[in-house]
């Protein structure tokens, strides 16, 4: 898993509530092997026409946001299907942080597993940040996981500032260390085996 400590990057505003994983990456691409990369397919149907020609105007295609590493979205980001490809597409396109008022639960979990940091900030604050980013295209935010802060560009006020966010301590530890949780869990073999013996005795019909 990719390690996450800090990220300073251009942030792009995405004014779209209920951004579902079918939009982040349409179902017809899911058979593709992970090794081929999904970055070029991120938000495919919002960025290209049916004939494959580019559909101008999507925020990530504007010159100022082309190299965005942070997305500021709206409520229920990543809702819908469990496809981890949604996280892979974002990461392969260079997005390391998504900030939103709420996330689809499975997307939220999938993000941590891959080293993408999903940050929950209040709905009104996300709206302010998106407005500030719209006024200041190409503005860079700094995300510090250890300190649990999102900070606006130095010297620019205009709606930015420093925001604190909460993060589950276990997930934070895994992200900071880049440690994969399968290895960690496998180190708990004895505990699991003891639990399974008790469980099997209690539910012998399984």
């Amino acid at each position, binding site marked *: 898993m990719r390690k996450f400590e800090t990220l300073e990057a251009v942030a792009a505003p995405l004014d779209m*509530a209920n951004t579902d994983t*079918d*939009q982040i990456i349409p179902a017809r691409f899911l058979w593709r092997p992970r090794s081929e990369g999904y970055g070029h397919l991120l938000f495919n149907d919002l960025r290209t026409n049916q004939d494959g020609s580019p559909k101008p105007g999507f925020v990530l295609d504007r010159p100022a946001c082309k190299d965005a590493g942070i997305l500021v979205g709206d409520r229920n980001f990543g809702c*819908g299907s469990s496809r*981890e490809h949604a996280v892979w597409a974002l990461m392969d396109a260079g997005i390391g942080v998504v900030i939103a008022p709420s996330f689809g639960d499975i997307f939220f979990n999938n993000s941590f597993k891959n080293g993408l940091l999903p940050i929950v900030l209040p709905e009104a604050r996300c709206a302010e940040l998106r407005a500030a980013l719209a006024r200041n295209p190409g503005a860079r935010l700094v995300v510090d996981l250890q300190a649990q802060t999102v900070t606006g560009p130095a010297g620019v006020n205009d709606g930015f500032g420093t925001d604190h966010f909460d993060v589950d*301590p*276990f997930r934070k530890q895994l992200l900071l260390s880049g440690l994969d949780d399968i290895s960690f869990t496998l180190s708990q073999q004895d*505990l*699991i085996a003891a639990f399974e013996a008790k469980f099997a005795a209690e539910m012998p019909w*399984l």
Partner: protein
Amino acid sequence: MTTPRTLFEKIWERHTVQVRPDGATLLHVARHLVHDGSRAGFQALTERGLPVRHPERTFGTPDHYVSTASHDLAAITEPYRREMVTALTANAREHGVTLFDLGDRRQGIVHVIGPEQGITQPGLLMVCGDSHTATHGALGALAFGIGASEVSHVLATQTLWQTRPKSMRVAVEGQLGAWVTPKDVILAIIARIGAAGGTGHVIEYAGSAFRAMSMEGRLTVCNMSIEAGARAGMVAPDETTYAYLRGRPYAPQGPMWDRALAFWRGLPSDPGAVFDREVTLSGADIAPMVTWGTSPEDAAPITGDVPDPARAPTAERREAMARALAYMGLEPGTAIAAIPVDRVFIGSCTNSRIEDLRSAAAIARGRKALVPAMVVAGSGLVKAQAEAEGLHTVFLEAGFEWREPGCSMCVGMNGDLVAAGEHCASTSNRNFVGRQGRGARTHLLSPAMAAAAAITGRMTDVRQLMAGAA
């Protein structure tokens, strides 16, 4: 006296292997389901050279990529789709996982066959690499969807790290009206609480409407919990549950049945158990529902109109509605019953069980479809049962297609797609932009309402259609 606990809490606690001081909980997975989309989960395991820890607790079936024209493997003409199916066969064989493969009558949509085979049982923690895993909560299981990395984790360790969700009780009290189905109930619930209304929560559905509901109806409701943003949905097990389970192949038999039953009877939420949130709806107020937009929360009664974005409470909602209506090609104020329908899909893990097919067949019987309509049973056994009852003849005589089991047009991964611009009346669970194909306009509704739409070529109040017939 012990503290009263909810159904969710009882299952969560029973499956807890470890709670870290920071709150992260390691949960044992009692039963794990896999499908032809689980390839990446197996791949990560292979790359690390790890075995499946409990193949006997893992069950699989191909559903997303299978052809509904024929279950011959050769009928999947695109190599990339065929490989998804054959990879599951190979992985199941290599790891000793039970597989209901193509050609097996028990094959079907993973969320249809779990309950059908009795793999799904009350009191179990179950997961699957698919967001509609909440379906299994209808039997009083705690079941939720996971991603590919989590699938690998479960395969390797039979456990999963989770943070404890909050609990929510959604009660529907009173009797449902004629032709008002469980699908209408869940669409009404989502319209009320919103597509993010259940985020971070496990919903327990309760109230007299659920006590009176069949197991299949409960499966339909729990299935769409994810569309309300919930982690899982569940219904307390009762006599309906036990009657449904008894005798199913993977359900306990003989003396084990009695032992299991004694355990199951202790599962329902204790009187006085506290939920973080409670919502109540009146069953009598629910009408047959149809979605007009691109989120499941965009649902309205068939007697209603397409809403006007100008009346939306916030600017954000106004824009979202306007965008949805532009995509759907609908004008504000249009009667829902005036929306044209170009195509009908009856199927998916939401509505492809025998009761769904009976309900649709009751409408189709003796009538003719005006638009292309496709019926896809949820499993080989559902299909066989429907054929034994002659339902396939009813559909075929009415001009509906009768297909082989699979996910089909719910997500179109197998090539069953809705053309751009077409309005599809669909019994599936997601009306997202592009879900059934690029530019496809999906309207979610019940099987009876879908069949009615096929007959008239527009959204139709099934109650009126059937009253006219009487």
